[in-house]
């Protein structure tokens, strides 16, 4: 007993002297919102590598030690409640389509615009990214131009509905991100404008 106590005392002394007992950095991998697998690779500056690849795995790292461990959803909830509360909401995505060969939106898409207005009102300091897309027929130069024109048209509609133009950014991504993959495809579902509200 006495022996243990003296060992403890000397351990405390070592901790006071050395940085090895400093509060470790604690990294906790959380599950993905959509349930897909994910990982974080932790590189201690002292060297080595730890990979966290399962939800609620943890890494504890000091300048001289690194080890993995695990925690639970309940523990994360209590320990990091303020972080959960302060996290901004994820971007909401809306898709609108044009009537074939026209600048006229489909009826469903007009309804989407109303939903976008509701979404915009629900977030603090709302930002909108209006992203035009084309099908995969033609060159990047042509498709970039078409997609930007489509996006600009939607931007105007949103401004007409009362959304602050300063909160809207417009981009034409051309054929870089088709929903239906395949080159040189005349596909109406790819000719769309995505509005992301965040």
């Amino acid at each position, binding site marked *: 007993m006495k022996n243990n106590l003296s060992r403890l005392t000397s351990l405390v002394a070592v901790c006071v002297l050395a*940085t090895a007992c*400093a*509060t470790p*950095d*604690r*990294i*906790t*991998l*959380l*599950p*993905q*919102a959509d349930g*897909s697998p*994910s*990982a*974080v*690779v*932790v*590189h*201690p*500056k*002292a060297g080595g590598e730890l990979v*966290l690849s399962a939800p609620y795995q943890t*890494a504890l*790292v*000091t*300048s001289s030690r*690194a080890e993995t461990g695990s925690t639970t959803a309940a523990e*994360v909830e209590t320990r*990091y409640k*303020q*972080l*959960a*509360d*302060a*996290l*901004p909401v*994820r*971007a909401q995505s809306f898709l609108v389509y044009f009537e074939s060969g026209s600048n006229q939106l489909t009826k469903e898409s007009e309804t989407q615009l109303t939903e976008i207005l509701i979404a915009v009102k629900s*977030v*603090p*300091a709302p*930002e909108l*990214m209006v*992203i035009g897309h084309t099908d995969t027929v033609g060159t990047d130069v042509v498709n*970039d131009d078409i997609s930007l024109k489509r996006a600009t048209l939607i931007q105007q509609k949103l401004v007409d509905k009362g959304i602050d133009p300063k909160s809207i*950014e417009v*981009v*034409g*991504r*051309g054929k*870089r991100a088709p929903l239906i993959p395949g080159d040189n495809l005349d596909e109406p579902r790819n000719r769309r404008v995505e509005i*992301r509200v*965040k």
Partner: protein
Amino acid sequence: MGHSKFGNVMFAAGMLLICGQAWAADAGIAKKILGDVRVVRAGTSTPLKVGDPLQELDRIIVAATGSAGLTLKDETLISLGPNSTFVIDSFAFDAKTNQGRADVSIVRGAMRYVTGLIAKLNPAAVSVSTTTVVMGVRGTEFIVETTDEK
């Protein structure tokens, strides 16, 4: 002669505009602020409010009773707990290609981080650091807690 002078002025104004925009390109925005949260930019500390833009090299300091929610332009989500210090070390994002770079540090306190569009396309272009570790991501949501008492 007068014409050329005018041309020079226009050129200078144009350069100023271009450089000014490059310099001031926003990296993100403050979305949720609770309590005392400040941003240190070019040596000057000012209170950070909801809707305020964030820039590369900004240092965000959250007091003992505060918390902050931030988004970066590529839809990265960040929350900072009480007693936190956070830095945007580098940020660039091209919305057309979704290419860019996002390096941030949490010097002190706790941060929750949800990767955005840059990481989706190129995870190697995203890093999160503390004074003891550098983290790489693979489509990830995670929490980092650190202290400056090393």
